[in-house]
């Protein structure tokens, strides 16, 4: 460092310093940003396999008469797995085929219900009407009702994950 004739750094050298400062800081910024973005945006590893839970007895269902069945389902909530109450609107079609709708309106998540007189599902929040096969008749809901994956074991209905129709 010590020179006999002290001089201030020349311009090219100052330019090199400035460029090096920029490059090194950029490298560190990138090295930090990549894990940070991954940490915040990449979903965490899935802990659980799909699960099937028993929702109820479908032996007594009357065709075209939806019934709300409630059951307990475990849900992964961050570092916890909680067991919570869940429901499904189960419809038996005239041909015997079963459908289990998720209990929330696809607009903003309100709980809808079956209106026997209107023969429609009615959401009380913004008056979306759904037909018995889950299609939107009127109102702001953007898509048909969500459906559970289902399996039938004798007269027992088992439900799995909820999917968009």
């Amino acid at each position: 460092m010590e020179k006999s004739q002290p001089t201030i750094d020349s311009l090219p050298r100052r330019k090199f310093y400035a460029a090096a400062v920029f490059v090194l800081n950029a490298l560190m910024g990138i090295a930090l940003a990549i894990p940070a973005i991954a940490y915040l945006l990449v979903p965490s590893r899935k802990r659980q396999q799909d699960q099937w839970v028993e929702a109820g007895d479908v032996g007594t269902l009357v065709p075209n008469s939806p019934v709300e069945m409630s059951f307990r389902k475990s849900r992964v909530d961050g570092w916890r797995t909680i067991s919570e109450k869940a429901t499904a609107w189960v419809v038996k079609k005239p041909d015997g085929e079963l459908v289990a709708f998720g209990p929330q309106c696809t607009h903003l998540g309100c709980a809808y219900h079956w209106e026997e007189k209107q023969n429609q599902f009615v959401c009380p929040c913004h008056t979306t009407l759904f037909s018995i096969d889950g299609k939107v008749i009127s109102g702001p809901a953007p898509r048909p009702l969500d459906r559970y994956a289902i399996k039938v074991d004798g007269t027992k209905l088992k439900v799995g994950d909820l999917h968009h129709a």
Partner: protein
Amino acid sequence: MRERIERLISGIDERTGLPAGIRKFLYEEIPWSSGWHQVFGSVALFLILIQFFTGIMLSFNYAPTPGDAYNSLRYILTEVTAGRIMRGLHHWGASMIIVVVVMHMVQVFLWGAYKKPREGTWMAGVVLLLVTLAYGLTGYLLPWDNRAYWGTVVATQIGSTVPLMGPYVTQILGSGNGIGVVTFARFYAVHVLLLPPTTMLLIGLHVYLVRKHGVVPALGDELKPKRVFYPQQVFKDTVAIFVAFTILFTLAIAAKVPLERLADPTDTSYIPRPEWYFLFLFQLLKMTEGPMEVVGTVVLPTLAILALFAIPFLDRGKVTRVTKRVTAFGVVILAGIGWAGLTAAAVRSTPPQTAAAQIDFSGPTEWMRLSPVELAGIGVYRSERCDACHNVGGQGGQKAGPDLLNTSAHHDAGWMIEHFKHPSNVVPGSSMPPIEITTAQANELAALMLKLTPEFGNVIATTPAFAVQAATVYQKNFCGNCHQVNGVGQTMGPPLNGLSQRRTEKWVVDHFNNPKALSPGSPMPPYKFSAKDMEAMTNWLFTL
């Protein structure tokens, strides 16, 4: 374009004065002799900013109450993407700050940069050192594993020995009834609410004073031209920061920070140790036992801190060349030797933790839910080198035999046992050689095969050897005919889960050797295990 930018900058300048301020900061004059020896302050500041950043990141997935703290940290380590890197950066960053802060202090001390009028700068720096140590002390508890819990038990006990003030220290730390939710809440609050703003204020004061008094000139600097902070010194600072960052990043990725088992206040076998930078204090404490204990816990540390504060007032001599400051070098070397000696003594006197205490809970622990027969099956799998031809769940490259994950979906235990003994009988054309194992071993291996679902696919790779060895002994001695482990076995004797909560390791060893002496009327016969088997057995039983 250039004109536009300049107009924008001068517009901002007119309204805020910010660009002029930054320019003043960057183009400050520094003495000719400034250089590489003055980079440590910047590195320390950089590392503190990294701690703020990673700390905030961790807090997004961390719940600060004892039970949840551990589980959420485990979640960060095992499930959250890049969570392990974030925690690694925060953990190793803490240690690196201590190292860099000490280097910074040593440099300032050797160069005599604390002399008039810079006493305040030095003293603010000493407070920053104490703040750094306070971060270390409070952060140590937050994982709420055994290490955290027991380390903090010792630290709070030391606090309670302070003469006169002991009860008040205990009151403030909330540790009157032991370490629990109250102490945890307080440590967390200090760590994330009290210390960070304090740090920022102190750094502000410290940097303000450095700027006010300027960088210390060396003798002869007055004859030489001044340098400017930017870009040359900034370049040197940045290179030093880059080196520090590279070390830190490498540690965060390559060096695993373990997570021990959940804090267990009933654990009688755990050997508490503080973080490495507190080991010298710990050793000092051990050397001053009995009535002299307060000397090691309170008197000496207090004197050392007071001495640090008093340095600018003790050394009032004129500024000289750093090479002439023989006494200063002597003090630093003596302090270094003292510190290293105490730390080495502490490390040497630390007995190794038991295998049970060393289980890493930041990795997969599914094996802990296996039954003894399945664990023993892992022993057969390993000793028969099944892995030479089979993978479980994909990893390991191309091999001769099929992947064993999910074999239970197609085959039952009877099929498997027949297959082990006469492979080509059940799979015509199979190139697998018959394996020479006892019926009991075949049962164990079959039990393991049935367990190899995706959830337990990692157990063959991750189960520690001591657990396998212990389970093999357990099976060989038919312990399951009287005892239950993880829900498997009979209940004539007491179930073995939770044994560590009820008994000490010594009790368990004595009980194996002579059950009737400790449990009168017990129908359990004595078991004379080899020393290795006994060690594996007690370790494993204590993980249950």
